Structures are given as structure tokens and as C-alpha cells.
């Protein structure tokens, strides 16, 4: 640990410190759970409000939800293809919305006002356990997609176009979740660190551009995660035309 001197109350850096909860034999990071529940609750509330009294001409929250639905549908259709995208739309949409709201929530909600005994609240995606869980879900999803659509013919994908590709394709199955999780984790943690270090050096105004850049990259990272998940699934269900 290299703790920065806590000169300013708003600019403490607590990387690697967690609020531990004991669950059976497991030690879990409580602050990640708390902020994920806030994110999940916010998403559920917005969706519930938006679908309560649905109109033929959407207004307000319903309009926003329909816009999001269109956006995610286009994303999924472009990557997965016309035939299979409907099955995977909920998965891709959930990933995108959860990551997006987590990233922005971590930057926009004033978590510092809530004091924890140790660790600090922040974006759930700034913890590597969250991103690895999401990335492993994507791995399971594309295996399931391929196997359920093509059966054992799915494994032909590993020896196409030539069997020489076999080792590379096997290694790819491991690097996919690795790069997915590290990319998201690194980007979000880097944003938070840059803002924290700048706020530590100059507490006023100077961190603002970095914050806006952080919001921008967080949104792009959510888009990238969803796009890549859709792309991997699309790759698995893609039929070769001979």
C-alpha cells in the first residue's frame, strides 16, 4: 500500500481496501454489493416507472426506454445477425445497462457522503471481481449459444478454415474473458484514480475536464463490452455457407 497523505477529505485514495463481509467461508467485498444494489434498484425503478402506464405515443420515461431498446436492438442485430439476435437481446441489454449505469453512477453519485468503516463506495465495475463475473457470463453465454444452435457442429468452428487454427482458437477462449474483464476494470479504475489524484493536487475546477473525459470513456466502455459480447455470441451462432 502507498497511501497518499489524507490532506483533503474528498481526495482520499483507497485502492485495495475493502469493507469485508463474512459469508460462510467467503470474504466478500461489501462496498461492491452495496453499490451494485443501488444500481440494480435504480434500473428496476426506472424500468418499472417507464412501463407502468404505456401509451401508444411514448412520452417521458417510456420514450427514453423505447429509445434505449431501439439502440440495443440495433447493436445486437448488427453483431449477432437477423436470425438469432432476439434470443440474446435481453442479455446484451442487461449487460449494457448495468455497466453503463454502474460506470456513470460511480462518477456521478456523491458516494463520499456515505461513510463506511473501511473501503469506499464507487462504481461496482471498478472492482475486478465484478468485471470477471460479467466476462465469465459472456463466455458461458457464447458457448451456450453455439452449442444450443449448432450442437456439436459448434466445434467445427475451431478447425475452420484450417486445423492449424485449433490452438489459437482454444487460447482465444481464455483471452476473451481476460481482455473483456481487464479492459473494463482498468478503464474505470483509471478514471477514478486520475480524478482522485487531480482532486488531491488541485481540488477545484482542474479535475473537471478529467471527469468529463471519464464519463465519456465510461459510456464507450459499456458500449464496447456489450458490442464485444454480442460479437462473440454472433461468432458462435454464425453458420458457414458452403
Amino acid at each position, binding site marked *: *500500500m*502507498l497511501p497518499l497523505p489524507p490532506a483533503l477529505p474528498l481526495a482520499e485514495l483507497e*485502492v485495495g481496501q475493502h469493507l469485508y463481509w463474512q459469508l460462510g467461508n467467503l470474504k466478500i467485498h461489501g462496498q461492491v454489493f452495496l453499490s451494485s444494489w443501488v444500481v440494480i434498484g435504480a434500473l428496476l425503478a426506472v424500468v418499472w416507472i417507464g412501463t407502468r402506464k404505456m401509451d401508444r405515443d411514448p412520452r417521458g420515461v417510456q420514450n427514453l426506454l423505447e429509445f434505449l431498446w431501439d439502440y440495443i436492438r440495433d447493436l445486437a442485430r448488427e453483431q449477432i445477425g437477423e436470425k438469432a439476435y432476439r434470443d440474446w437481446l435481453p442479455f446484451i441489454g442487461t449487460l449494457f445497462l448495468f455497466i453503463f449505469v454502474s460506470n456513470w453512477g460511480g462518477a456521478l453519485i456523491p458516494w463520499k457522503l456515505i461513510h463506511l468503516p473501511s473501503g469506499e463506495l464507487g462504481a461496482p465495475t471498478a472492482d475486478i471481481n465484478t468485471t470477471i463475473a460479467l466476462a465469465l457470463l459472456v463466455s458461458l453465454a457464447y458457448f451456450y449459444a453455439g452449442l444450443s444452435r449448432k450442437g456439436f457442429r459448434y466445434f467445427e468452428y475451431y478447425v475452420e478454415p484450417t486445423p492449424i487454427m485449433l490452438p489459437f482458437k482454444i487460447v482465444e477462449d481464455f483471452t476473451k474473458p481476460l*481482455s473483456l474483464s481487464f479492459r473494463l476494470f482498468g*478503464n474505470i479504475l483509471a478514471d477514478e484514480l486520475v480524478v482522485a489524484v487531480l482532486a488531491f493536487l488541485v481540488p477545484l475546477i482542474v479535475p473537471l475536464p478529467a471527469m468529463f473525459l471519464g464519463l465519456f470513456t465510461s459510456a*464507450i466502455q459499456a*458500449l*464496447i463490452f456489450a458490442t464485444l459480447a454480442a460479437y462473440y455470441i454472433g461468432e458462435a451462432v454464425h453458420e458457414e455457407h458452403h
Partner: protein
Amino acid sequence: MDSITSAASVVAAGLAVGLGAIGPGIGQGSAAQGAVEGIARQPEAEGKIRGTLLLSLAFMEALTIYGLVVALVLLFANPFAG
């Protein structure tokens, strides 16, 4: 953590990000060059080019971020701290 380990970790953290930034920097430069040329030749495709460019820039940036993750591990969760 003894002083040699911490000195080596700090140097390695700096190198991880610094060296890791070279390749993606060159890559992002040539991607931006391609995008600008594309827009100059075909200004009506600007929206589509910008979207693709941002997505691919983020992919390249991920490579530096891997270096950053290594640097952060060395600084904040050093496995050799002992």
C-alpha cells in the same frame, strides 16, 4: 516491503505504463489519420466514420490499460510485498 522491492516495483510500474503507451499511441495516430482522410474524401460519411473510430480507439487504449493494471497491481497490491 523492503526498499529494493519497492524501488523495483515503482520503476517497473512506470515502465509498464510508459512502454505500453508507445504502441497504442502509434496505432491511434494512424487510425486517426485514416479517419481524417476518409472524412476528407467523403464528408457525408463523417458520422459513421466517427463512431467506428471511437470504438477502435477504445480498443487500442485497452492495451495501455493492461499496462496500467499491471502498474496498479505493483503499486497497490504487490504480490512480492511479503
